[in-house]
């Protein structure tokens, strides 16, 4: 993000005193940045304040501090189920997506077979199709497979939906691991699969983390697919639960809604922080030195 600050010409500029023009320029720059940041953050004020407000309403107000909303969220009969459904779907689709993606990505990276380039290009092209454009036919296919209104159907659709991206990511990740490392394992008597497990899997951590985060956040935040695929209230994930709660026009429980939104935002936020830290630590560097 800040690679520009490394450029060697900067110190020379700093040495001469600031001209009035520079001061004006910098002031305008900071004002613009602060305005942008306010634009980005102010809309969240209602969610944050209302979640801890005993008498929350539809608009921003100074809260009567209490964690009552969260207590009610976890004590209410329907709402904890939303979290569980969301977790089941997001974790399920991420695991399935990664299993398929690692195996496929390894094949795409290590084997030269006919149609490989065609396949890679085709799944890249799939990215061009906006989701609403295929949801209708997908729904009918799911009806025929009797997979609508089931969590495993939703898991399957979301896992496959993110598969093109995961395949590309994992192909690139495996590409970066020298084949020599695997060959060394073969020489030491490992079979191909053992070599994958002992050599390749430990080294694809960063790529795997990135793919997992993308897939989890995509599945966790998905609104259209569960809206179309699920009809039973007991299967709803948080996205649909929040939408339904918000749609009860006249008797919306604003405090509970804001608390649900906070619960909904937390897992991707935690994952983001966690994976980001891990992404920085590349384990590949040391592997080739010995």
């Amino acid at each position, binding site marked *: *993000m800040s690679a520009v600050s490394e450029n060697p010409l900067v110190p020379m*500029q700093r040495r001469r005193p600031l001209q009035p023009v520079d001061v004006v320029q910098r002031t305008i720059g900071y004002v613009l940045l602060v305005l942008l940041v306010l634009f*980005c953050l102010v809309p969240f004020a209602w*969610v944050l304040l209302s979640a801890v407000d005993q008498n929350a309403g539809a608009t921003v107000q100074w809260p009567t501090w209490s964690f009552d909303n969260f207590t009610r969220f976890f004590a209410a009969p329907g709402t904890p189920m939303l979290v569980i459904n969301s977790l089941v779907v997001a974790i399920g689709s991420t695991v399935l997506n990664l299993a398929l993606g690692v195996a496929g990505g390894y094949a795409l990276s*290590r084997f030269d077979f006919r149609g490989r380039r065609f396949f890679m290009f085709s799944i890249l092209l799939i990215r061009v199709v*906006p*989701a609403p454009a295929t949801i209708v036919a997908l729904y009918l296919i799911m009806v025929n497979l009797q997979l609508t209104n089931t969590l495993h159907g939703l898991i399957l659709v979301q896992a496959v939906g993110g598969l093109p991206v995961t395949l590309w990511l994992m192909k690139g990740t495996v590409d970066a691991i020298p*084949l020599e490392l695997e060959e060394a394992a073969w020489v030491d008597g490992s079979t191909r699969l053992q070599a994958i497990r002992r050599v390749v899997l430990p080294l694809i951590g960063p790529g795997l983390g990135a793919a997992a985060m993308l897939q989890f956040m995509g599945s966790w*935040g998905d609104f259209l697919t569960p809206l179309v695929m699920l009809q039973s209230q007991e299967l709803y994930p948080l996205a649909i639960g929040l939408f339904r709660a918000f749609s009860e026009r006249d008797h919306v429980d604003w405090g509970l809604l804001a608390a649900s939104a906070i619960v909904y935002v937390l897992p991707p936020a935690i994952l983001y922080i966690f994976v980001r830290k891990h992404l920085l630590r590349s384990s590949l560097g040391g592997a080739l030195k010995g």
Partner: protein
Amino acid sequence: MTTIVDLPAAAQDATRQPARRRRRVRSTWPIVAVLLGPSAILISLFIVLPAVYGLWLSLTNTQLTGFAARDPKFVGLDNYVYLLTSSDFLASLGQTGTFLLFSAIIGQTVLGMVAAILLSRPWVRGKGVFGAAILMPMVVPEVVASLAWASVLATSPEGTLNRLTSLFGAEPTSWLQTVPMVAIILVNVWRGLAFAMIMFQAALEDVPVELIEAARVDGASATQVFRHVTLPLIRGPVFLYLLLTTISTVGVFGLVYFLTRGGPGGQTRLAAIYIYERALQFSQIGIGSAASIILLVIVLVLGVVYVRLAKVKV
């Protein structure tokens, strides 16, 4: 890569001509089928088949319920004729175009560029904090984004936007009723601005500093440098961004549906919402599918135009 030299002689024999086979081993179909087969089958079934099946459905009068549900008939291009003469659908396409032009192509691009340029200035302190704050709208799920904006756009005088405008003496407005399109454009600019910023930051970092310095030494103003040096150099990434944001903006559904449900009076019924209503609420699968295909064709045409304009080889 140098490790190969240190391998024992036996290893050299075992791997035969490692240089040539370094990246890929000769094809062995069974193992490829086992590793890649499941992915290929599932992608065909859940991504490729819906597109093909959608094309077929768009030529039939398939319904979810009722008489036509049992016995769908081939109706040729009837659905397309219906849609292209339907003022509702044409209005919906027009709204999608307006939404795309003002929120993605103008709003996100300009604000994203401003943010990227400001954060690339060497004198800016706290880049991490500013960057993280601007990323927030993109990281949260879209339902939460909509919910947050519901309070900003609220009708009552306590709505955040109404409080802001009242500082300038304006009367409270019910934003989602009086100017619904402007409201959802604003929301989408907010949501997508961070992605534009990330794309442009990466592009700006690749512009050689020497070129900019040289232009400055020759007396060019900052605006001239941007217009004649920076912009031509980041042309490729800018059009790639426009392609990506066009695809995702045409695909925007939840963000708008949550706030307006396409209303009031169909004023924010974007094509995605039109498709959802027709196919899944009025159960007219045939018409919904035809609308999907039309939308898909428009996105593909726009994609080709961008690639041409970008003058980059793909």
